[in-house]
């Protein structure tokens, strides 16, 4: 098993860990952090492949993802703060006002 393969496994594990966290955790902030985990799994995979191919394109793309992720967090955290101020809880289960 060479280095690339190992890194790919680590990336996949990171992604799966994040996804599992999003699905099973009830705390909104934890869910957000898990989403970051998934993003980083993808980033790791990208960087690994870019290095293996000897191309800088993948690395540039990773920086782009960082920027997008930062913007996403900058929007998501205030939303979470507003939600918390409304319901006084971080439990995602209590935000079900649009339930049919």
């Amino acid at each position: 098993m060479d280095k690339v393969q190992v890194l790919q496994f680590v990336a996949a594990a990171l992604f799966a860990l994040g996804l599992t966290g999003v699905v099973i955790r009830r705390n909104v902030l934890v869910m957000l952090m898990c989403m970051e985990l998934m993003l980083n799994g993808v980033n790791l995979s990208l960087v690994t492949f870019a290095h293996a191919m000897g191309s800088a394109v993948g690395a540039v793309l990773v920086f782009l993802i960082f920027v997008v992720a930062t913007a996403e967090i900058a929007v998501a955290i205030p939303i979470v703060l507003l939600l918390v101020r409304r319901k006084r809880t971080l439990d995602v289960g209590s935000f079900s006002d649009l339930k049919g």
Partner: protein
Amino acid sequence: MGLLTLIVLLPLLGFLVNGLAGNRLGKRFVSVVGCGLPAIAFAVTVKCFLDLQAGGWAPLAETAYAWAVVGQSSFEIAFWFDRLTAVMALVVTGVGTLIHIYSIGYMHEDKSYARYFAYLNLFLFFMLLLVLGKSLLVLFVGWEGVGLASYLLIGFWFGDMEKAAAGKKAFVFNRIGDAGFLLGMFAIYSALGTFDMPAINAAFMGASTPAVSASLVGILLFIGATGKSAQIPLYVWLPDAMAGPTPVSALIHAATMVTAGVYLVARMSGIYLHAPEASTIIAAVGALTALMAATIAIAQDDIKKVLAYSTVSQLGFMFVALGVGAYGVAIFHVYTHAFFKACLFLGAGSVIHAMSGEQDIKKMGGLGRKIPITFVTFAVATAAISGIPPLAGFFSKDEILWYALASGRGGSVLLFAVMAFTALLTAFYMFRLFWLTFMGAPRMAKEVEHHVHESPASMTGVLVVLAVLSAVGGFLSIPHFLEPMLPLPETMAAMQPYHYWVMGGSIAIAATGLAGAIWFFAGDASRAGAIRAGFAGVYRVLSNKYYIDELYDRLFGRPLVWISDAVFLRLGDRMIIDGTLNGLASVAQRAAGRLSRVQTGSLHKYAFLVLVGMVASFVWMWTHG
């Protein structure tokens, strides 16, 4: 602006002034405007008549306004003044002005004084439009307009539901006739491409026959005339129209508007000369109407109802004259009838005024000495309508009887017999009315009797003028005057020897009617009472007007109400239209109710489903890759 346009516009101006600002102007000003403008219109009409005479009777024509130009056709508001128009316009403005003046006294107490004069002027405007219009289209606008004015004035006291309903009835029955009129107009336009009446007459009189049956057009136009001129089967609105103020009954429902149908047929005589079938129908309908209305009039007790049925009957006389081709004679009767019937109605108004609103002749009697001017003028008009020479009605009715017998265009002994009998009935019921009102012992309550008083001079003056006209009006031979335009029909040679017999006969008929009425109703009217008791069944049918209103109600009224309610309202409106909308709405609501359960509100479930979707698509790609 020409003189003819001026005649028409003067009453319209009166309508606008009184209608828009009348309540703020005071009764005196309203009266001056309301009566002054028709009087000026009358003066202008006289001026036009003199112009017509000076111009060697060549018709005056005037185009006021190009209404619409569509391709090659142009629809103009044009006026036309020939001998026929002259007679009609003089009667309309002359009698109209007199009745306006009478109204000052009659309506003095009414709180809607300005509205009354505004409506009356509006009526005069439309009536002049009808009479002066050169094209059928202008005539039709006037025709509808007088119907509107009639509706407004019948229901003038609309606070009373019965009066409002009478106005509605008049309007509806006129609309039925108008449908026929419109179809006739369409038929004429599609065949000739013009509404110009002189041109239409010329086309039907010309060498090549137009591509439409003259009888069809004639019958359709006559259906319109039956509505407006209260002939069978559409006459039932006229007796109810007496709900309006009495001067309105005199002006609209006796002297002018109801003769519009007669005018229409006479004006379109070019068509009817080539429509023997239509002419036969007109004569038959006229004779039947005259007879039927006269029999009903015998058994009525309301002074205005008697006069109303008398009007229907006299209109029948006019249509008989039209049916046998004696158009000038019909117009002659229009002209004499306008005087004596206006005089009778206004006299009745004066009686009602004196009796503090009482209209039942059973509760009158002995009024002759208390209201002498009304009494004398009413007597003259009664004698005139009964055909006693040398009063106006004698001349016109005698000519109608003569042409009913001898005209080469459908005169017959049967027609003559029916009309002669009707003339007898006319004399009888008119003198019955006269006797019960003015002669004998008073039958009213004491306080009413104490209150009886003669009307003011503005009312009695008009009565005197109309009585004089009813007396001497017949010496102007209108048929002779109209002959260059509306030639009289050939008379059958075989009947020629009987001409003076007919004249003598009509005098005898009038005298018999008079004598009969006096014989029956003199003293305490016990002879009439005995007859009534002997023929109780007949009397009941007559006093209930042959149950025609009830028949129409069963035949048309109730089925229409049922269809409107069951089919249009309950099935059409509520079930189909409302049902479709409500159904669609509830389908959407229910479907949305089911679908909304998909939204659980649980973020984990959504995320899980995304995960499942992603895994599924990966698996699919793997297996198909």
